[in-house]
């Protein structure tokens, strides 16, 4: 079969099984768009800004586990995509981004809409390619998907000069079934010797804790993690990225850890004598001050990326492996082993944890006559029966979503953790809804974040992706304001806007339903109304208590045992209890 470059590109994507392309046209990709026009298998989702394309593809990838695919033009189209590429990179999300480039003969001449996309994205991609030969195009696409989806996943950019896709240059097409790259061989299974050493530590521990993260979600190993946790009987905490990998309503789950983690999770980390880290990368939001991190613990670390191991925290036993086979192998060995964790020690440990838990660190004023953001999230949980896909933006609302919506399944909680990209939530929700049209999809956002990709409301209308936008409107960049309250004596420097749009009208202008909610008693009915409108995108503008803060909080330079807790019920405060 002879095809031109544009056709090869589209046919390769088809052969790769791609369902959706999120994109935006322009000069350098016109040949490709022409080829797209002449086929019906792949659905192209026309976004309103290239950042939206990357976030939507990212949301699709996080919810399904399949790589997200993006198509943008050269120059500004490509640079607009960079934030979304970096977002995917930081959270290890598989994504293939095809960017148009100026024609080969003019590369380097400051041609119209030329940017060095390979150079610009180099530090925020797993890998990138510039295609210089049309006969290499299909193979390059195959490699891009292979690299993006294997090992520690990540975004891959394929930069395609316009002349490579020229209609009149046809070459034989064959999509490779497999590729191998001699310089890239991701580790798969674990070293048995290391696993045995790990099991010796696990069974000898008195105050053990499982600290698991996004790697379990990425590696589709929730089942294995749950089984192992149940077998061991240990307490388990998840990172922000790991939420849902272990059921949050399970008795052994003690909440998220880290900066805004629960008191019991952070105290348990601090006091533990053994930590088993599974697909988590000891991020600074998790560890707090490094020299105060887990002073009594030995550490076992399972991770597919050797560079994640002993990067910030030195570990005692490193297990480089894909998480699923590692946990399977571990279960086998535990079953065979005659060593068992001490029941008595575990009982005492659980007793201690329950004591920590009894302070109810997530309690808040339920009698306020203002809408508490936490209450909105709790009600959302009830209305959606805990079954929704929840995307979020970045800020206080993100933390409340993580704290008050217990996720029992992986891939339901979709947020930007590593880069912390405001603007992520809405386009991500659209990507999720396209993948799961029958599921409830809600975006928990703030009035500042949502404005960063608000234009995608238009995309939601065009492709009939009825998502529910839960805007926790505190008329502040709440997260910034909170830090200013705590560390800058409440000098609220530019953390609010004097003009906030009327979101109801805005939603209506985009052809959607807008509902403004000002009283606590209206929260539940409004949510029910919104979710009853099955085929409409609904923008719920909750006017919340603007002084509310996220607790607990580990402030900069502090250890896990040194958390700032809410003092009295109700008002925000900067006095310390603990």
């Amino acid at each position, binding site marked *: 079969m002879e095809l031109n470059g544009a056709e090869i590109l589209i046919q390769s994507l088809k052969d790769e099984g791609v369902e959706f392309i999120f994109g935006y046209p322009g000069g350098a990709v016109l040949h490709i768009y022409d080829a797209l026009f002449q086929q019906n298998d792949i659905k192209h989702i026309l976004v309103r800004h290239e950042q939206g394309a990357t976030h939507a593809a990212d949301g699709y990838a996080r919810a399904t586990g399949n790589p997200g695919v993006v198509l943008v033009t050269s120059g500004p189209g490509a640079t607009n995509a960079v934030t979304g590429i970096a977002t995917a990179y930081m959270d290890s999300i598989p994504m293939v981004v095809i960017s148009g480039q100026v024609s080969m003969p003019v590369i380097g001449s400051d041609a119209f809409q030329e940017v060095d996309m390979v150079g610009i994205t*180099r530090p925020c991609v*797993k890998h990138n390619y*510039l295609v210089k030969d049309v006969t290499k195009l299909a193979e390059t696409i195959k490699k891009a998907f292979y690299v993006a989806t294997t090992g520690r996943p990540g975004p891959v950019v394929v930069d395609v000069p316009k002349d490579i896709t020229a209609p009149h240059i046809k070459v034989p097409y064959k999509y490779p079934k497999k590729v191998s790259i001699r*310089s890239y061989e991701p580790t798969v299974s674990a070293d048995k010797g290391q696993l045995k050493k790990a099991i010796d530590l696990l069974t000898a521990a008195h105050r053990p804790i499982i600290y698991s993260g996004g790697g379990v979600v990425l590696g589709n190993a929730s089942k294995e993690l749950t089984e192992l946790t149940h077998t061991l009987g240990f307490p388990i905490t998840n990172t922000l990225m790991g939420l849902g990998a272990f059921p949050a309503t399970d008795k052994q789950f003690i909440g998220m850890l880290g900066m805004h983690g629960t008191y019991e999770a952070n105290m348990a980390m601090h006091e533990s004598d053994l930590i088993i880290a599974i697909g988590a990368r000891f991020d600074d939001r998790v560890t707090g001050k490094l020299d105060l991190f887990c002073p009594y613990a030995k550490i076992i670390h399972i991770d597919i*990326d050797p*560079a994640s191991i*002993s990067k910030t925290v030195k570990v005692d036993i490193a297990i480089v492996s894909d998480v699923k086979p590692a946990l399977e192998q571990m279960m086998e060995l535990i079953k065979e082993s005659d060593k068992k964790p001490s029941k008595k020690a575990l009982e005492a440990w659980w007793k201690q944890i329950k004591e920590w838990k009894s302070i109810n660190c997530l309690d808040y004023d339920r009698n306020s006559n203002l809408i508490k953001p936490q209450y909105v999230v709790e009600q959302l949980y009830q209305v959606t029966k805990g079954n929704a896909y929840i995307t979020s933006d970045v800020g206080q609302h993100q933390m409340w979503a993580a704290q008050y919506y217990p996720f029992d399944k992986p891939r339901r909680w979709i947020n930007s953790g590593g880069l912390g990209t405001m603007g992520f939530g809405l386009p991500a929700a659209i990507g999720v809804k396209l993948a799961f049209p029958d599921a409830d999809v809600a975006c928990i956002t703030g009035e500042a974040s949502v404005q960063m990709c608000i234009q995608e409301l238009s995309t939601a209308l065009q492709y009939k992706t009825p998502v529910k936008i839960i805007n926790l409107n505190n008329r502040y960049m709440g997260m910034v304001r909170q830090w200013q309250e705590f560390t800058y004596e409440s000098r609220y420097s530019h953390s609010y806007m004097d003009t906030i749009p009327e979101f109801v009208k805005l939603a209506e202008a985009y052809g959607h339903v807008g509902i403004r909610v000002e009283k606590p008693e209206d929260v539940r009915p409004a949510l029910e109304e919104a979710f009853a409108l099955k085929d409409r995108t609904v923008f719920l503008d909750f006017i919340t208590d603007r002084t509310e803060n996220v607790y607990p909080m580990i402030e900069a330079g502090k250890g896990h045992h040194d958390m700032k807790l809410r003092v009295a019920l109700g008002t925000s405060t900067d006095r310390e209890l603990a």
Partner: protein
Amino acid sequence: MKHIISILIENESGALSRVAGLFSARGYNIESLTVAATEDATLSRMTLVTRGSEDVIEQITKQLNKLIDVVKLIDLADTAHIERELMLVKVKTTEKTREEIKNVADIFRGKIIDVTPTSYIVEITGPSDKLDSFIAAIDAKNIVEVVRSGATGISRGEKGLHL
């Protein structure tokens, strides 16, 4: 401590910038970097000299290995190895100093490869610290120009870096 890291990398455009970019992005220092194709035209060999604590060097080698284009690498500090660097030094000469400079060059097994009425160019090969010593041995005010290739290295005996 000084480490010489030897890298086999795909001979593709951009491969060098991936390595250089990694070092600048992560704040590692590069003392020198040399690169050229090998007997296999699809592979380049890069020699990188860096300094850092054991932890930093461990991260550097892991991060380098993580680059898709990197095929293999070794840290020569871990094995018996030979290190060589080439240096060209232009030295100001006068009737009086010629003899003395030539003597020093001889001691370091340097060669004088160019002579003008007022200058010599001395070529010296050896481990980097030998080149340092040569420079220290020449009166600084006579040195006009120093060009160093950066160190390259190879491990001794059976062990080595090849496909």
